[in-house]
Each structure stands twice: as C-alpha cells, then as structure tokens.
C-alpha cells in the first residue's frame, strides 16, 4: 500500500490501482484504490 501510494504520487495520470496478495490455505485478497492526484488520462 505504501508503494502504491508512492506510485500514485509519481503518476497523476493513473486513476486506479490495486494491492493484492495470496494467503495460505487458499485465499486471495485485493484492495482497489483511487489516486487522489489523478489529473485526467495522458
């Protein structure tokens, strides 16, 4: 999440990002985030 936040800062053209991970005993988790710095697509 902290890496994604830094990516958002560096890339105002990116609107959405995800953080995702796999989990033992067979699961996955995903959070979708929106970039507050989004200034419209390139």
């Amino acid at each position, binding site marked *: 999440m902290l890496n994604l936040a830094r990516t958002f800062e560096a890339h105002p053209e990116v609107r959405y990002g995800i953080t995702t991970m796999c989990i033992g005993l*067979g699961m996955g988790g995903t959070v979708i985030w929106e970039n507050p710095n989004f200034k419209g697509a390139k």
Partner: protein
Amino acid sequence: MSRTVVLVDAVRTPFGKAGSLYAGTRADDLMVRAIRGLLERNPKVDPASIEDVAIAAATQTGDQGMNIGRSAALLSGLPNTVPGYSVDRWCAGAMTAVTTIAGAIAMGTNEIAIAGGVEHMGNHPIGEGLDPNPRYLAERIVEQDALAMGATAERLHDRFPQLTKERADRYALNSQIKTAKAYEEGKIQRDLIPTAARSAELGWTIATVDEPPRPQTTMEGLAGLKTPFRPAGRVTPGNSSGLNDGATAALLASEEKALELGLTIKAKMVTFAFAGVEPEIMGYGPVPSTLKALKQAGLKIEDIGAFEINEAFAVQVIAFLDHFGIADDDPRVNPYGGAIAVGHPLASSGVR
C-alpha cells in the same frame, strides 16, 4: 461505501533476514517503532484522537501475543483510552487490519485509526505451534501439500505449465533489479522508520535499509539454486520471498476527518474483496479476489493503472499476470520491486 476511507500515510521498519538483523530485537518493539514513526510523521494527528489500533500477526504468542494490537498501542505511548485488537489472516494480516478498520470508518463507527502488522519469523518460524486437525488428512479436506507454502507454489507450476521456472527466475531477477534501482533513487528509504536493532553477530545498530535484497542476483545464479520443496522442482529461495522480520503501520481516516485536520491523502479506498481457492494452489487466490473487487467497483482490469502484487513466490505473481493478459515485465506492476527482493514478514506485508 457510505463514507470514503482514505489512506493518510503508511510506513514500515526496514525488513531483516530471520536470525540476523533483528535476532535480538523483539517483535513488539518493531511494531512500536512503526507506530511511533507513523505518528511522528503526522504531527497534526493527536494520538488521543486515534479510535482503534488493529495489528496483525500470523503467530500470536510470546512477543507477538498478549493482544498485540492493544499491547503495541500501550507500548507506543498512546493514551490508555485508545483501544486495540489483533488480526490474523496469515500473509494478509495487515491487509485485513486495513480493510477491517476501513469497514468501521465507512460505517461511521471510527473516524481515524491505525492498522498494521508485524512478523518476526526469527522468533516465530512459519508453522510454529500448528496442530492441524487430523481430519485434514484423514478426510482429505486438503492435500498435504496445502500446508507447505512452497509446495503450493510447485503445484501452481504443475497447474499452469506455461509458467516455467525460467519465467519465474526472470521475474525474480527483475524484482531484484527494480528494488536496487528504487534504492538508488531513494524511493524506498523515504517510508522506512530507522529502527534500533541488536544481534549477537552484528551487535547494536540502527537499521535504515532492508537487509534481504540481493542486487548481485543473476539468471545463472538463480538457475543453479536448489529446489527445497520438491526434487527437481521449480521453486527456489531465489524466486521466492525469504523468512523475514519487520513491521508496518498505516493511518486511515474518513475523507472528512482527513480534510478537517488538513492531512495528506495518499489513496482513497474504492472497495476490497477476499476470495477462496483450492488450498493446494493458494497462490492463485489473487485472481478471484481481484475479479470480485473489480465487479464490486464496476471496473475492468484495463482501468487499473498500477499493480502492487505481493511476491510470496514469483510463480504466483506470473499466474496472476497471465490470467489477466499482463506481461511479466509490465511497468505498471511492482515498479519498486517486491517481496522477493525486500522480504515478506508474513502479516506485515499487506501495508507495504
């Protein structure tokens, strides 16, 4: 969500190799450093205004026990009026701490709170104290491989033969290269909280950088590594994350509260999802959880411009990328490298 949840800030301790950098440092002390570092970076937040502290650990005994959430809050010097609780979803502990806190903020029961995670795999080796119910094997609820994470990664290679060892090794090498470059550019250090460490081998030190990265990694070197999970297998210590120690902490708030206090907003939560798959191929889990989250958000994979995928195993990342038709070296994916390079202290990684 009824109220928008925002990520105000997130930090972590440098990560160490189990049995090395933090061999003489307690897990709860790592967690405290992360929380204190987070609050020091955000002086506009009155510690007394924190409404909850959710901390994850995969093993909740010893220095990760005693309700690590409440204990870390007290040890961090938060007023004793600030409550805390502990969370466990193995590797996704800190992620679950964040989503659970987010749920409370969205519902309006909290306005500002801390979520994080810690794992000292030197003090708590993976699988410590586990006592699997015999029915697991007797009734074949899961196959034996399901309980050994490296074996599940081998199963993922079996399931998707196009995910070759060469691809996994190349992905791992790229992760090391990206992390080395991010370090050169100072992009990783800025979110690390300097942490006092003590070990018999290294003595006292202040950790300011991660210990696990191996920038000298080469494809030839990776090709020659042993495959500990299966004879002539494909999963090696080089294309997997290691056994690590570290802690992470995030400050979450309602958008209204963040604006009221004049806090930075680093990201806004859109939605989240968890999903289950066959335990034998746990590395495939991010595919259904991402599909579910995208559906909830009304978004398509093409709408996502940045991916942060935890690199427990290289094969698990490329399985995800393959499913969504994304190249193994797509620049949108883990631009600063990932767990293969910096390490994966289980329950802490969700916030990294």
